[in-house]
């Protein structure tokens, strides 16, 4: 009992001391950035031992809403320019947002192929279970944009987009949840980012790029959130855009910043 009390006391004393020595930087990052930003945070902490980087991952739209409601973010890394513009419009962003990475939309099917989907065209076949991002989620908006472009392609037919959307069984709230459900084989097909089909998920998934005329390049902007640790936030953003940061992003299949 005495030892337990001692342990508790040590922990209670140790934690604040450590916290006082290290400043914490709060980064809000799009769900698709999980692997890349985990690596970037580690590298940044190594280069700046006095800083601890805490990253909150989620659907971009959710993070933007949280920042708007006053969540304590220092840096916001968005999966599309729409939500960054949303926060800029509300005066919540310090300085000009910078695009730090790109990503392309891919058509994803489980390797077990339960829906016997041979290619993108099969996504419109009746009975195929398609999952997409909700319209407010960046990947969902990109998906609808791609479907609109594909519908202009005579090879797919003008009702292609409508037929695919009719096959949608779920509008997921972040891209990683969507990819996991595909990896489990619970849906037949879906649209995600090229960078999502990596690591563990890749073993269970097939991904193909969209045709050139429907190619979507997602642009990821990053910015400091107003009024909080601006200098440190700036330093982190510079690191993300530095050759070292760009290399870590490229390793996760992101495109270099245009």
């Amino acid at each position, binding site marked *: 009992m005495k030892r337990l009390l001692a342990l508790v006391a040590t922990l209670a004393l140790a934690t604040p001391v450590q916290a006082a020595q290290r400043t914490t930087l709060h980064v809000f990052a799009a769900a698709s950035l999980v692997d890349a930003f985990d690596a970037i945070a580690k590298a940044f902490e190594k280069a700046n031992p006095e800083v601890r980087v805490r990253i909150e991952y989620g*659907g971009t*739209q*959710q993070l*933007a*809403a949280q920042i708007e409601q006053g969540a304590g973010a220092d840096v916001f890394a968005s999966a599309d320019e729409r939500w960054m513009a949303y926060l800029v419009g509300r005066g919540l962003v310090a300085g000009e947002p910078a695009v730090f990475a790109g990503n392309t939309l891919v058509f994803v099917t489980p390797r*077990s192929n*339960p829906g016997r989907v041979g290619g993108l065209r099969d996504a419109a076949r009746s009975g195929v*279970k398609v*999952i997409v991002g*909700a319209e*407010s989620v960046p990947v969902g908006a990109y998906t609808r944009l791609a479907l609109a472009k594909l519908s202009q392609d005579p090879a797919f037919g003008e009702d292609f987009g409508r037929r695919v959307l009719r096959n*949608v*069984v*779920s*509008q*997921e*709230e972040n891209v990683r*949840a969507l990819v996991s*459900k595909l990896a*489990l*084989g*619970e*849906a037949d097909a879906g649209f995600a980012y090229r960078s999502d089909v990596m690591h563990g998920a890749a073993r269970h998934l097939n991904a193909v790029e969209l045709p050139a005329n429907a190619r979507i390049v997602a642009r990821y902007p990053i910015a400091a959130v107003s009024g909080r640790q601006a200098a440190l936030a700036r330093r982190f953003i510079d690191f993300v855009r530095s050759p070292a940061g760009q290399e870590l992003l490229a390793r996760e299949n992101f495109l270099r910043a245009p």
Partner: protein
Amino acid sequence: MKAVRVLAVLASALLALLLALPLAALFLRRPPGEILLRLADPLILDALRLSLVTSLAATAAVVALGLPAAYLLATRNFRGKRVVELLVQLPMVLPPTVSGFALLLALGRAGLAGRALEAFGITLPFTTLGVIVAQAFMAVPFFVLAARSGFEQVDVRYREAAATLRADEVRTALRVMLPLALPSLVAGATMACARALGEFGATITFAGNMPGLTQTMPLAVYLALQTDLDAAIALSVVLVALAVGLLAGVHAAGGVLLGAKTRRA
């Protein structure tokens, strides 16, 4: 001693504030008329209808499956009873997302029992039936625990009296135990219904999110929070009202039934 009493009152006041303030904020954010207008939004009506249908169905399923279990737990000792008790309580403490994920691994079409279900033509992920299963999974403890304690509180002498009148166990259970435990059963079912109505994590993980099909009120609130704050407020207000109504129902029904019982006794 006086200091302790003051502290106790202070702590209670703080607790009341913690619970009441968020609710007040929800109701005060927009004028009531505006909130009412938003309720006619088809998106909200769809979610409301779906939520009512699924949570009632989930409650019915939980009562049908949970009543015998509650009775057996209250009246029998058997090998493995501890395990059953633990199992029944588990959904209450598990993170709902974990429950949803586990359901997906078990009952998803690629899951442990999913193939068997598929053979019967039953698909759960991304279907309304899946929503009902997720809600039922989460609501089980609320009914079974209440029903069990209701059965346990029935005085043994009633059962003995029935036995001396040569009533067999099934007859005793139905004619004596069930009516006497009724207030607890109703309260438990109502709590289960409230839990089903509020279920979010297991639902979105297991059944996905599709307006009209699997997007219940809590899911609609979550998504509206990211795009349409006023709709989120309207949905939240409806959910709070329903929850309050259900809780009031528990108390009223309990009181009425309890009163009837004591009069009869």
